[in-house]
């Protein structure tokens, strides 16, 4: 308090105060510039190292035996598509339904508890989710793609549920009241009136969750990492995936495999950044539309 009163009595210290202010403001600017620069350096390195290593073989061929050059990681692309697709198919219905419960049925205290639990689930280290499924399903049975997909689904679930809750909360109450006043039952109101208005919000939330799951390595290490070098569409076996391939190839002694890791990283980072950027833009738009309507 004393300091502030000192500041208020504008004495000859005004110039010094302005200097301090400018110094602090430039620190803010520098910090932001540094963050942007790091993003630039990381994506720049991935571009510089990844693009030269890109070729058609990467997407169409499987690994060659050690020491030879050429080959690709087609099995990882196929595996990632299947794993993330299955995970999305599991997480989307559960996420949307749980969000409907929270915002349309549950009373406030229960809703708050569920939200808190979902936030905790979202904050759990992803490696712990891998270990959890390892002890629950892998021990005694071996890894397979379904278990990997469940791990990714657990990562996606809180993201989808929370983003759906957010858009549901933005649906204006007069829509609900109008529909109920016309004698429409609650379930028809929810499925026929409320849910359609949130469709684009749910879609973008799901896309964000997919972008996140596509880059997750840790949940797959214990659930779907001991895979063969061939293309397999069978989730009953362990499936290859892009992040696990990058993880393994990044520590491989063979520089040729390091190059492939960079190429895979280029594909992954492009996918993740483009989808998350697009869905963020779409989310902001649908949110502002709902807020106006």
């Amino acid at each position: 308090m004393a300091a502030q009163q000192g500041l208020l009595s504008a004495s000859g210290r005004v110039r010094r105060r302005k200097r301090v202010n400018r110094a602090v403001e430039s620190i803010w600017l520098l910090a932001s510039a540094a963050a942007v620069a790091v993003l630039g350096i990381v994506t720049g390195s991935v571009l510089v190292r990844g693009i030269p290593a890109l070729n058609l073989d990467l997407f169409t061929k499987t690994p060659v035996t050690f020491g030879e050059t050429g080959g690709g990681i087609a099995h990882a692309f196929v595996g990632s598509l299947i794993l993330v697709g299955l995970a999305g198919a599991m997480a989307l219905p559960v996420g949307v339904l749980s969000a409907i419960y929270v915002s349309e049925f549950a009373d406030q205290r229960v809703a708050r508890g569920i939200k808190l639990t979902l936030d905790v689930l979202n904050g759990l280290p992803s490696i712990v989710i891998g270990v959890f499924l390892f002890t629950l399903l892998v021990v005694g049975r071996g890894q397979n793609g379904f278990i990997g997909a469940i791990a990714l689904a657990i990562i996606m679930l809180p993201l989808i549920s929370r983003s759906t809750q957010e858009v549901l909360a933005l649906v204006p109450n007069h829509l609900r009241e109008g529909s109920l006043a016309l004698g429409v039952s609650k379930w028809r109101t929810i499925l026929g009136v409320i849910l359609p208005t949130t469709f684009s919000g749910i879609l973008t939330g799901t896309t964000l969750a997919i972008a996140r799951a596509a880059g997750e390595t840790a949940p797959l290490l214990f659930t779907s990492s001991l895979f063969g070098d061939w293309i397999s569409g069978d989730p009953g076996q362990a499936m290859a995936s892009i992040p696990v391939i990058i993880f393994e190839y990044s520590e491989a002694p063979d520089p040729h495999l390091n190059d492939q890791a960079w190429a895979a990283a280029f594909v992954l980072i492009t996918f993740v950044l483009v989808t998350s950027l697009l869905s963020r833009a779409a989310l902001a738009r649908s949110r502002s539309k709902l807020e106006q309507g």
Partner: protein
Amino acid sequence: MDAPVSELPPHALASRRRLSDRVGDTGLHLLTAAAAFGSVAVVGLIGYRVVYGAWPAIQKFGIAFVWHQTWDPVKSNFGALDFLFGTAVTSFAAVLIAGPLAIAIALFLTELAPPAVRGVIGSLVEMLAAVPSVVLGLWGIFVLSPFLHQHVEPFLHRAIGFIPLFGEPSPGGGDMFTAILILTIMIVPITASVSRELFKSVPAELKEGAYGLGLTRWEMVRGVVFPYTRGGVVAAVLLGMGRAVGEAIAVTQVIGGLTSIPTSLFQSGDTLASRIAAQYQAAATNIHIASIVYLAVVLLAFALVTNLAAQVIVHRFEFQRTGGS
């Protein structure tokens, strides 16, 4: 049936509703409740199964596992101290660097930047959060780590080597310092975006009042924004800390994976999460597997505490701000 509607008991009204609506309402209610409580149950199941999987190790080593230093698969003698130490040092150092940076970025975005710049830089910072950790780790191995080994570490050692933390640089391979910087990069965006939301919530009339009294921007931030959001900023930093503690992949890639307590930041080390990740193929005996799961128990306990604390603080903050409504 001739009675006026208002005199009918509620259940009589309900019975007039169509069967499909009654079934539909209850059905949707039950279905959504199952999904919601199922999701909650997953968290409980995670806690239960992880402790269950670690049970052989918990029985054998007890709580002493946490401060026991050996990790010897050959003699089946396991303890978590090395990794706890590594986790504590890397996360704490990363938070120490990332916290002020993130707050500065959030202040730049809310107080200083013009709207057009704000949108662009804001989404660039969010994109940094979207970079998959395995890609960041790959970059750490091939770009950041060599750069640090060749330029930064010798420089730091020359300049402030009298502090034992900045000892003789290692010739190559992973070290704690690289891991700390990678973690810093990972937690700056999350802390910045939470802080940004907090700073945005400061009422404009308070800020304008401060400006009206002739305060500079920094004085306004110190006098209005910080006191108003204090608890929330602590929560934002805690969330970043939780992220740093739980990060497995990128840390495994750059930290070197050595089991001993490093005396300098430029030596290899290991963390709880990265040890778990590094051992996914190596575990041979049951007690080895159970000990790895025990590490996950320690990690889980820590994550639960930081997360719950952060949520409670944020919640209390919102409660205060909205006057309890």
